[in-house]
């Protein structure tokens, strides 16, 4: 079953999303250059929990007037399968990639009233101060109470908010863009990611937001738990008996999304698909699922577009 949208066939199927814990961290620095460097470092090697300790990505750049310290900022999001598997990589990545990066500071990006739990990352991070760390308290008794740690470092001082809000989130939102050739498919995918960047609370953790090598569970090799998504590889569409690559399609790129809630992921999928369909050469759009047996969320493409 499929339906047409902007002249592109959209398969009436769903992306299978998984429940994960997610958080949002605001990194600020003296200028945009250093904020972006810290964000890129912190979200590196975090495309998929298949082989990474977490999934992470840049949500958006934040203008100085919207950051707590009035400096240029970048919001990054981190996802893990449990609170423990979220807080551990958070701590490691903040410690190795942000604390080390000149002029940076970090702030909670999920307010306590919106969070399902608060992760006390600062409680561990502070020990780097070796006894010279300073607990900073703001707003006691007259404003919203805030806690920070000031950690002395060689360059000056690292400022870190003590607790970070974590939410029960959605990972694994996806759609596959299938095009006439590599150029049109890549252009459509890039446009999709650009559109998704405008949706708050969502990241696309793969390189540039795109995964050109989607995977399926398992392999003919017993030691490998994931292998190339053979049904969607155009290069073997004739030799692979169950190929799902439609006629006229010669390139497929997957957009994978994680978000703090289902509605955000659905909205991001919708704007991404819509943007992709505006590029000539895009033939089909579908999504990856496991028959609804593995994931908690069935993120329907039609429902997403109807909702948008």
């Amino acid at each position, binding site marked *: 079953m499929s339906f047409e949208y902007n002249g592109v066939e959209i398969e009436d199927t769903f992306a299978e999303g998984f429940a994960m814990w997610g958080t949002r961290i605001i990194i*600020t620095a003296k200028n945009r250059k250093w904020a972006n460097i810290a964000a890129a470092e912190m979200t590196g090697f975090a495309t998929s929990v298949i082989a990474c300790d977490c999934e992470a990505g840049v949500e958006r750049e934040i203008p100085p007037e919207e950051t*707590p*310290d*009035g*400096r240029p900022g970048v919001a990054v999001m981190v996802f893990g399968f449990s609170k423990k598997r979220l807080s551990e990589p958070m701590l490691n990545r903040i410690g190795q990639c942000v604390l080390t990066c000149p*002029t940076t*500071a970090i702030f909670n990006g999920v307010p306590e009233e919106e969070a399902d739990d608060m992760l006390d990352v600062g409680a561990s991070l502070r020990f780097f101060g070796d006894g010279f760390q*300073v*607990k*900073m*308290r*703001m707003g*006691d*008794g*007259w*404003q919203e109470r805030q806690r*920070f740690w*000031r950690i002395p470092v060689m360059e*000056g*001082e690292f*400022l870190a908010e003590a607790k970070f809000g974590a939410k029960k989130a959605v990972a694994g939102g996806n759609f596959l863009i299938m095009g006439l050739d590599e150029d049109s498919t890549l252009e459509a995918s890039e446009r999709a990611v650009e559109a998704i960047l405008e949706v708050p609370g969502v990241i696309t953790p793969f390189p540039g937001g795109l995964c050109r090598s989607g995977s399926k569970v398992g392999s003919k090799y017993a030691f490998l738990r994931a292998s190339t998504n053979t049904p969607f590889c155009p290069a073997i569409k004739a030799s692979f008996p169950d190929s799902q690559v439609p006629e006229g399609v010669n390139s497929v790129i997957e957009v994978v999304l994680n978000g703090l809630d289902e509605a955000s992921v659905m909205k991001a999928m919708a704007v991404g698909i819509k943007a992709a369909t505006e590029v000539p050469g895009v033939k089909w759009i579908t999504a990856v699922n496991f028959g609804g047996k593995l994931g908690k969320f069935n993120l329907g493409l039609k429902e997403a577009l109807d909702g948008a």
Partner: protein
Amino acid sequence: MKELWLTPKGLPSIPVEAEVICPDVVAGRTLKDVKGLKVYVGNETHSLGEFFEVEGKLAEQAADQMIVVDGTCQTVKYIGAKMSAGSIHVKGCAGMHAGSQMSGGEMLVEGNTRDWAGAEMSGGLLRIMDDSRNMTGAAYRGSPEGMTGGCIVVEGDAGVELGSFMRRGMIVVTGDVAPFCGAHMNGGEIFIMGKAARRLGAEAKGNGGFIACLGGVDEILPTYVHETTYKPTFMKLYMRQLRDALGLEAAAKFLEAPFRRYVGDLAVGGNCEILVAENGAD
């Protein structure tokens, strides 16, 4: 918010102790009840109605009650003492202990205040639009802790022992402060936009507390050591808070200011910080 208006009439030269001028006390009462509330003058007991015209409306809850004191009451003590909610607006000066031990709500004094304003405050906002005398936000004698929360803004000068024994909360003085500011301080933040007199931070233990001097200092105690001069990121948060939450525009010019960082008081093994803005008027 319902307004209760109290207009002073024939206040005696002997101070009137009127802790009943507080939203927590008047809320839920009738005007007649409020007029009959007891106040103390020396060793005599009087009623509030003898010294104030009482009119306006009364709320059921303290949070919905505003009290307007329509005139100067320099001899009226304890206005707003122990208030937990609502607001008080004094259209003139207030006597000793104004807003002392308040835990919530807002109190605005258009004139000056006498000693012990906001003493041992634990919450809320006390804003004094003129000078505040001695022991503002301090601990009462014998008490181990002064302010434990809330915010005091003095838009003028402040007397001696401002914020002594402070534990939490914030005090901002836009003018100068007299000696012994933050003595025995063990937490909290004090911002002085004018000049700080000597002995500030004497015997302060620290515990995350600091005194920020934006307009220079007379002297730093020899038991404080100069650590470095730097631009601390955390100060940007405070300067934005002063500017945006308290409307103190002058704070904006210190957003990028370098600060000299002193730590002490080593006489008591403390790690309290005194941060002196480099572009302050030393």
